[in-house]
């Protein structure tokens, strides 16, 4: 949350502009006003800004000039002339300002987006010496995973002299409930880590000593915001927290999932640009025989190490030795990946969180460059064309002994004024529209505390803008010689035109590329959101199952049955069913390298997902059976049976789903369940992923998630009623729920954001191109008034006039299309490869942008031609 102080930027503005003698009283008044106001923070700040801007009236503003140095009269007159000139040519001034502001705005935002994505994990001390171990398995199917087995970190710590510290991080997936005192919440962001965690990642601790935080068994480090949530302002160190559903252990009474930890440290919340995020960090030092225990956890550890030197090749050979020591019969490799490469360079299975993509960064950067180039060339074209119109003005100046530098100053100051106005507009827009922009960027631009990088980007774009649009035209115009300045002859006019044409053609190509690509991404996103999942995820409410104090299995079973039957009798609830997985989220159970048909070799075993559902689950969520049947309570043998999906049936090596029915497979130790049904493939996760092979087992009451089905078109069930029942049956368990379809579509959030941002900026760039066409045609028509008049006298129709104005632009668009078509195709095809399921590029997606650009150009030029054609002939012919 923002601090309760008035916007600092507003105060700075006042300090800059306000007369010193009244400043103190005014700021005092404003602050008092701010403190008096009891509205919401946003409203308060807006009102404050209003008051500040309202204050900046002539009486309060100090006279322009830097201390002791007044503007020289000549410089001052230049400013005045610039403003007059801008006012006189208000059409071109506004075109220039709008174009420049649009381009500055979008390139600023894009650069901020890129800056943020690029800044991931760079806040860590020694980030260039920290690596994560990726694991590549090439057995059966190729599998790149961000996690590996426990022995890797153990070996790195013990037998690698060049490793300063290594650490395992284990992410707890699934339902976790945290209790402290009377506060009970369902929590995410729980990880387990070795005690070396804080010597690798030197995170700032708010409380506790880094070397002691994780050493003791059952010690826990929490984030600052969690400390505030549970303990308020009290000191949390030494307090206890009970975590249900994270790490359990076997005791005399059975498996115990209810563990109490002692808080030994509080860490600052991790910044948004960290790939590794957590709220609770449990010491993995949980067991007496730690290494033996962790060995059974499979490939589930993110393994980080800090090397003593930033470049270390001895590690690679050492990692090979680890494999030959622990997994001699497996084809696999361990590869260190630099910490800072993870966010943009890693898209493996089991990533800690969905990462960004370097390709998208490049695409965004391209758009930014396109927009800058397009706006810059516009400006240059306008000034070139205007130079002819201004030739008389310059010539008069020359006659009165104006030197080149005088003229240069004049034109330069004009550009400076335009750029400054645009930049001011952009900053204003940024601050006003920040709540709208932030969701598009995916992170907040903290306007109170703008990172210095952002300012340097802004200053840089401002300077580049001045370079392009102030210095360059000033040079061109100040070099005009007196004789030429008086009268620019026709041949020169055309030579200027041809240079402009090249730039215009370049603009067209780039904007077509951006627009075409954007249409394809939008269509892919439409496809993604409309494609059938393969199961009915609609009209479904999911309640994460109970985790606290579930007692032993039989008591728990009875309670769940009780809850199920009570709730399914409620109005609007058509049924309640239970399953241990969620569509739209990676299934927790992964069987790697042992599941196979009876008789097959273990080497040929592939990787499968497995999960548990109740008897009604598959039929309630409308999975379509392509062979066999669903689980049936009346067959007692079904408890040892499985249902698989088509991908699993194919991977097991059955010719057809029917063939799979009745076969037994080697599953866990001493278990050879029979396949009784095959369901059609469905999209367990986003369309980026291929169909996954999944094995369903049956349990009477799996406790992962309760699925509440309600009838189409009916109202949502009364959730407070259900919450009451929940509270009675599962006392002490927090109640949360969400709509399954919302949860499922959340996995497309980054993709949607990308395509939206891209579409927005491609519209910007096309608008700037159209502004350019308009400006050029306007100047072209204005400088050819007499020619058009003569043509008209000789009987030319309005179409002829249109033709004379349009032919060059039309040819440029056609040429640009020829270059743009293969470009669009290549770039879009490359991007679509991110998706396992994708649209094919159709002709209209490429023809559309071309048609659009042509249409807009025809429209703009058409209006101009009609205007010039309708000009009074006598006036046109007199024009010189």
């Amino acid at each position, binding site marked *: 949350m923002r601090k309760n102080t008035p916007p600092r930027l507003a105060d700075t503005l006042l300090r800059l502009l306000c007369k010193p003698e*009244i400043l103190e009283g*005014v700021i*005092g008044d404003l602050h008092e*006003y701010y403190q008096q106001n009891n509205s919401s923070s946003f409203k308060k700040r807006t009102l404050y800004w209003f008051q500040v801007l*309202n*204050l900046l009236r002539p009486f*309060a503003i100090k006279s322009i000039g830097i201390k002791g140095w007044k503007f020289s009269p000549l410089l001052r007159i230049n400013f005045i002339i610039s403003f007059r000139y801008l006012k006189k040519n208000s059409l071109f001034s506004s075109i220039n300002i709008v174009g420049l502001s649009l381009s500055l705005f979008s390139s600023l935002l894009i650069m901020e987006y890129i800056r943020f994505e690029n800044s991931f994990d760079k806040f860590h001390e020694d980030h260039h010496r920290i690596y994560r171990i990726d694991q590549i398995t090439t057995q059966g199917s190729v599998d790149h995973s961000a996690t590996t087995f426990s022995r890797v970190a153990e070996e790195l710590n013990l037998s690698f002299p060049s490793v300063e510290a290594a650490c395992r991080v284990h992410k707890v997936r699934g339902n976790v409930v945290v209790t402290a005192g009377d506060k009970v919440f369902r929590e995410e962001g729980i990880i387990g880590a070795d005690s070396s965690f804080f010597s690798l990642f030197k995170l700032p601790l708010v409380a506790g000593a880094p070397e002691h935080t994780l050493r003791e068994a059952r010690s826990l480090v929490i984030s600052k915001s969690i400390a505030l949530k549970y303990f308020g302002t009290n000191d949390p160190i030494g307090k206890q927290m009970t975590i249900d559903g994270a790490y359990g252990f076997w005791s005399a009474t059975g498996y115990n999932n209810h563990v109490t930890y002692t808080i030994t440290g509080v860490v600052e919340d991790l910044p948004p640009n960290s790939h590794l995020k957590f709220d609770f960090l449990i010491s993995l030092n949980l067991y007496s025989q730690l290494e033996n225990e962790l060995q059974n956890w499979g490939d589930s550890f993110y393994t980080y190490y800090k090397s003593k030197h930033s470049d270390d090749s001895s590690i690679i050979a050492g990692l090979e030795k680890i494999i030959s020591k622990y997994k001699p019969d497996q084809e696999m490799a361990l590869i260190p990946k630099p910490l800072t490469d993870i966010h943009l360079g890693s898209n493996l299975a089991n990533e800690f969180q969905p990462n960004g993509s370097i390709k998208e960064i490049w695409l965004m950067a391209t758009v930014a460059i396109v927009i800058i180039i397009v706006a810059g060339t516009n400006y240059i074209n306008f000034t070139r064309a205007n130079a002819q119109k201004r030739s008389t003005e310059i010539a008069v100046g020359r006659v009165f002994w104006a030197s080149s530098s005088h003229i240069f100053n004049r034109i330069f100051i004009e550009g400076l004024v335009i750029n400054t106005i645009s930049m001011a507009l952009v900053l204003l827009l940024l601050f006003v529209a920040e709540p709208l922009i932030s969701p598009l960027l995916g992170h907040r631009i903290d306007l109170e505390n703008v990172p210095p990088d952002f300012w340097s980007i802004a200053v840089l774009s401002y300077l580049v803008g001045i370079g392009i649009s102030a210095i360059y035209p000033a040079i061109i115009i100040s070099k005009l010689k007196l004789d030429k300045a008086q009268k620019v002859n026709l041949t020169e006019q055309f030579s200027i035109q041809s240079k402009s044409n090249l730039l215009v053609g370049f603009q067209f190509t780039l904007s077509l590329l951006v627009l075409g690509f954007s249409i394809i991404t939008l269509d892919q996103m439409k496809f993604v959101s409309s494609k059938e999942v393969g199961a009915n995820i609609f009209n479904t409410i999911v309640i994460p199952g109970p985790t606290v104090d579930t007692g032993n299995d039989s008591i728990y079973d009875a309670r769940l049955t009780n809850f199920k039957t009570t709730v399914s009798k409620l109005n609007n609830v058509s049924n309640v069913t239970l399953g241990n997985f969620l569509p739209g989220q990676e299934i927790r159970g992964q069987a790697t390298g042992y599941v196979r048909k009876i008789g097959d070799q273990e080497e040929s075993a592939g990787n499968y997902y497995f999960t548990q559902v109740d008897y009604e689950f598959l039929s309630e969520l409308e999975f379509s059976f392509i062979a066999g049947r669903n689980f049936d309570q009346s067959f007692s043998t079904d408890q040892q049976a499985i249902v698989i999906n088509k991908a699993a049936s194919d991977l097991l090596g059955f010719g057809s789903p029917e063939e799979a029915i009745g076969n037994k497979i080697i599953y866990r130790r001493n278990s050879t369940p029979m396949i009784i049904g095959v369901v059609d493939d469905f999209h367990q996760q986003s369309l980026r992923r291929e169909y996954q092979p999944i094995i369903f087992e049956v349990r009477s009451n799996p406790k992962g998630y309760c699925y509440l089905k309600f009838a189409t078109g009916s109202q949502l069930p009364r959730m407070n009623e259900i919450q009451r029942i929940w509270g009675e049956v599962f006392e002490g368990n927090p109640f949360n729920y969400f709509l399954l379809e919302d949860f499922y579509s959340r996995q497309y959030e980054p993709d949607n954001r990308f395509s939206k941002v891209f579409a927005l900026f491609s519209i910007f760039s096309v608008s700037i191109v159209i502004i350019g066409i308009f400006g050029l045609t306007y100047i072209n028509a204005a400088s050819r008034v007499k020619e058009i008049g003569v043509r008209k006298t000789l009987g030319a129709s309005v179409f002829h006039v249109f033709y004379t104005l349009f032919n060059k632009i039309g040819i440029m668009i056609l040429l640009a299309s020829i270059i743009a078509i293969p470009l669009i195709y290549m770039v879009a095809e490359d991007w679509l490869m991110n998706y396992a399921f994708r649209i094919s590029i159709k002709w209209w997606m490429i023809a559309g942008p071309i048609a659009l650009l042509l249409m807009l150009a025809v429209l703009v030029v058409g209006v101009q031609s009609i205007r010039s054609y309708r000009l009074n002939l006598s006036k046109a012919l007199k024009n010189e």
Partner: protein
Amino acid sequence: MKVEAKTLGEFEELVLLIVALKNGDAYGLDICNEIQEQTDRVATIGAVHATVARLEKKGLVVTHMGEPTNERGGRRKRLIRATKSGMSFLVKSRDEKVKLWGQIPELTLSKI
């Protein structure tokens, strides 16, 4: 630079009145709040400061910085006090109005 005050705008007069009634303790925000309380209309801090600056130019008020206090983070208030000519302007303005009021026939008043 003293300009002889002949007439004042309605808002200027309102501000001057409030300055007079505060008896030397008036400052920017205080006047804003007072205006809102007494007349139910909203004046921005900017409007008040601008008006005070005009009144000061006309010689009807004088301003000086007060002593620093704790309440505004040590910032001093810019206190405003009406001058003699300010007070006499108010008296004159009131007398004029009262005179005019006295001349409105009863008949017209009863129509309201």
